[in-house]
Structure formats: structure tokens, C-alpha cells
């Protein structure tokens, strides 16, 4: 029971106060995520998917409804949720090691030796042991994002929140990191909520794809179960009929059911 609604978003709405009056960004969001499940949020830009993620992260407070994580009320940010930001958000004056250590040191009360060990292991998990002492400006965008993932995972969070983590990367690096993320999640059994606008990425990585309607007052339009067996192979799936079908379903939602409203918004 507990594990079925590990992360529970209940009747959540978010209204922003703006100079032109209230702006209803999200309304009536209901979402329950199982322990160990990988869920992606997908939708057109401006649909409030990042807002929803920030609500779960605690960076924003919901106007209506509640969010529960392991039966605990989410009230503000906290280290039980590991957040990976779109633009990596590494502190440029700290080395990769120090960036991760800053998080580890905050969460665990172990000896210094153990803290360092935890930090090293997190960097090893993302394959960056060799770059521990490099500064963020000395490594590539993909490597920075890996450090961001290591930082989020090192604190052993209950849920990993990823906000378009690969959005700023080139296609090849993105593919590599998607594979890496699948491997890491498989290894750690992490519960993941990820925001993306990439259909292939959503289908490839997720157990469920949550498709959001266009804003304002966006909500969950449809939920797609991705029943593909794991481990998943990018190349094998490229010709897999089931994969194509799922991909088509997401595309159809985005470009047929939600297309009209999106155009209106542009005009």
C-alpha cells in the first residue's frame, strides 16, 4: 500500500499571482508513483511540467492539494529528494568532488573518511572517477550533467527529480547519458520523476509516461504504461513494433489532441 503511493500528488493546483491577476498554471493534478518506478512528465512547453516538478521538489508551494513522499507531507525543499537541474547548476568554484561532497556532508553524519568514500562512490557510479579534481568549466556539458546526477544520487534520496536533464546536450551525448541513467536506475532501484519534451526519451526510459494538457490550467491528459521489458536496448527498440506504437501514442497526444490549443497560444 505504502509502496504503491510512495510519492503521492493529490488534487494539486498551482496559481501564480501576477501583475495581470492570477494565473492558474496547474489544476487538479493526481499522480501516484510506485517505489522504484520511473515516471516521465511530457507536454508542450509552458504546460507546467517543470512547475509540477518544482512543487514536488518543494521549491514552490502548491495552492491547492497536498504532496506526500513516503507518507510524509512535502513542505519545502529537503534532501530526501535529489534534484537534477536542466543546466547542471554546479558551483563553478568547487571541483566535481567538492560539489558532490557539499551535498553528502549536509545529509550524512558519518566520519570524514566515510563522507569522502560516499562522494567517490557516487562519482564512480556516473563514471567520473577520473575527473574528481576537475572544475566544472574544465569538463564537457555531458560530464557536468553526470556530476549533477551524482550529486543528486549521493544523498540517497527517496526520489530522484530530473528537470529536462539532457535538454541542453547534443543528440549523441544525450543518448549516452540516457543509457547511463537507465543503468544507474537499474543498479540503484531509484524512484524517478523526470520532466522531458523528448518523446523517444520518455518512452525509452519510463515505466509510465504522464502526458500533460496545455496551459493555462494544465492537468494530466493521459497516462501511458510502457510495458517494454527491461533492460532496454536502444538499437533493438528502434525497430520494435511495440516501441513504435507507444511512441506514436505519445506523438498523437502531443500533436493531435493538444496541437490545436498550442497553436492558439502562439497566435
Amino acid at each position, binding site marked *: 500500500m505504502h509502496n504503491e503511493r510512495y510519492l503521492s500528488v493529490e488534487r494539486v493546483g498551482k496559481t501564480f499571482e501576477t501583475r495581470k491577476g492570477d494565473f492558474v498554471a496547474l489544476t487538479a493534478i493526481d499522480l501516484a508513483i510506485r517505489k522504484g518506478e520511473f515516471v516521465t512528465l511530457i507536454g508542450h512547453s509552458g504546460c507546467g511540467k517543470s512547475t509540477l516538478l518544482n512543487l514536488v521538489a*518543494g521549491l514552490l508551494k502548491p495552492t491547492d492539494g497536498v504532496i506526500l513522499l513516503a507518507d510524509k507531507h512535502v513542505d519545502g525543499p529537503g534532501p530526501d529528494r*535529489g534534484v537534477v*537541474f536542466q543546466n547542471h547548476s554546479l558551483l563553478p568554484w568547487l571541483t566535481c568532488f567538492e560539489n558532490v561532497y557539499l551535498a553528502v556532508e549536509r545529509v550524512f553524519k558519518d566520519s570524514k573518511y566515510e563522507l569522502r568514500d560516499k562522494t567517490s562512490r557516487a562519482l564512480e557510479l556516473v563514471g567520473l572517477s577520473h575527473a574528481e579534481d576537475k572544475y566544472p568549466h574544465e569538463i564537457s556539458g555531458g560530464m557536468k550533467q553526470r556530476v549533477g546526477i551524482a550529486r543528486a544520487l549521493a544523498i540517497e534520496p527517496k526520489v530522484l527529480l530530473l528537470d529536462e536533464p539532457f535538454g541542453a546536450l547534443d543528440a549523441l551525448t544525450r543518448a549516452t547519458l540516457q543509457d547511463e541513467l537507465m543503468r544507474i536506475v537499474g543498479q540503484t532501484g531509484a524512484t524517478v520523476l523526470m520532466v522531458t519534451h523528448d518523446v523517444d526519451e520518455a518512452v525509452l526510459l519510463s515505466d509510465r509516461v504522464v502526458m500533460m494538457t496545455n496551459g493555462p490550467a494544465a492537468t494530466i491528459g493521459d497516462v501511458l504504461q510502457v510495458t517494454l521489458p527491461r533492460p532496454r536496448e536502444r538499437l533493438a527498440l528502434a525497430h520494435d513494433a511495440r516501441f513504435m506504437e507507444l511512441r506514436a501514442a505519445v506523438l498523437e497526444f502531443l500533436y493531435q489532441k493538444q496541437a490545436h490549443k498550442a497553436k492558439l497560444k502562439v497566435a
Partner: protein
Amino acid sequence: MVAVVLQKTRFREKPKPTSPPHPAARREIPVQTARRRAPAPEWLITAIAWIAGIALFTVAWAAIAKFGGRIPDPLTVGAAAAKIFADPFYSKGPNDQGIGWNVLSSLKRVGIGFGLAAAIGIPLGFMIGRWRFLSGMAAPIIALLKPVSPLAWLPIGLLVFKAANPAAIYVIFICSLWPMIVNTAVGVRQIPQDYLNVARVLNLSEWKVFTKILFPAVLPYMITGVRLSIGVAWLVIVAAEMLTGGVGIGFWVWDEWNNLKVEHIIIAIFTIGIVGLALEQALVLLARRFSYA
């Protein structure tokens, strides 16, 4: 491919720092520049330009000296400088000391006034940058007082301290204060929200937020504030010392004017310029040490 490489070498651009190359790409690309005439190295051109500039300046100066009356020519000044710098640290009473002592006492005044300004201005800048209300309070006062010539504060300093030396230090303090406050406050406001979000999701303690995020993020702005302050302070000290007297490079200029030793005034001008340049360069180096990206 080779043509592209050749063209690139013709631009004297420093290579941009790139991410660590892929092992396969680490192999050096052979650049065949041997058959083309290699362009002159940049340092040589810079050096020639420097020498040409200084030579032209000296010639113009000599010409003015020759036809312009009372201005001493470069050779006279050079000879006087050799004499002065042969013994820069002599002391024959408070009104007759070597140029070294004069420069050092000016630097000491700048150091004290500037240090006090940093001790007050930097924390104040942090607070003004962090709290909107405080910023609203300070903005009109700073806007009003910043354009005032620091020398206008000198009579107030004399009135309060009843002595020349603290009054001069006080003028330096006032003129260093504004750039320090303003730049620190701007730095605090410029901290990317991303960094603060990291602090929030990790629930970092206030102390960690300050030492690991606020301070390093603001440091480059603070150093800019320090650089501007030092520059202004060094400009102002000369004028302040002319008015207050005592020992110092500004006073020395005025003293030599009264003695009508124009060549010494010119030496003082160069000395002031060189010291100012050294201060500026030292801070540029410091700033480079603390710039990330």
C-alpha cells in the same frame, strides 16, 4: 582541411579552452606552415609598438621643452631622477624626506582608509544586496553622495579630527566606500537563482550558504569594487595631501612646486603613475585568480 588550419593560424587568437579531447582526437593535426612566411610573433609587435610610443612621447616632450620655456627636457629629468632614486629613503626632518618615504606614507594612508572602507563597505554591500528594504533605504543616499568629489569632505574631516593625517585617511575612506558598497551589492543581486536553488534543495545551513555560495559568487564583483576604489583612492590621495601637507607624494609635488623644481614634479608624476599601475595590475591578477568559467 589543411587550408582551414592554416587560416586559423593566421588569426592571432588564443585557442579557446576546450573540453578534454576524445582520445582519438588527441592526435596532433600536422600544420604545414613552413612554406608560408610565418607572421611575426605577437610579443614582438607589442614590444615594437611600446618602444615606438615611448620614443614618440619622449621626442614630443623634448620638443616642448626646447621651445616651450620652463619645462625641463627628458635628459635633465633623467639626471634628477637618477639622483633622487639613488637615495630614496633619506630623512632630514619632517619636511625633507626621500621619495621612497613619501610614496610609502601615501600608500599607508591609502591602505588604512581603504582597509576601513572595505571593512565597512563589503558587509554593508552584502546586506544591501540581500535585503530589498535596506537597498531602498540606501539607494537615494548613495546616489546623492557618490558623485561628490571626495575632497569636498576634507573640511569635515579636518573639523572632526582636528589633524591633517586622519583627515586625509578619512577622505580616502569616503571615496573608497561607494564603489565597494555598490559592487558588492550588485554581486549579491547577480547570484544565479540556480545556485540558490541548490542551497535550498540541499537545505544548506546559513553558514554554508555564505561560505560556499554567496561569498565565492560575489568575490569577483567585490574585487572589481576594490579595484575601482584603489584607483580612485590613489587619484585622491595626491590632491588631499597637497591640501593637508605632511609627508606624502602629493605634498612632495606641492613642495617641489614651491621650490620651483619642475623636474621633480615630473618625476613625481611618473612615480604616481607607476605606483597606480602596479596597484591596478596586482588587483587584475587577483581578479583573474578568482574568476571562474
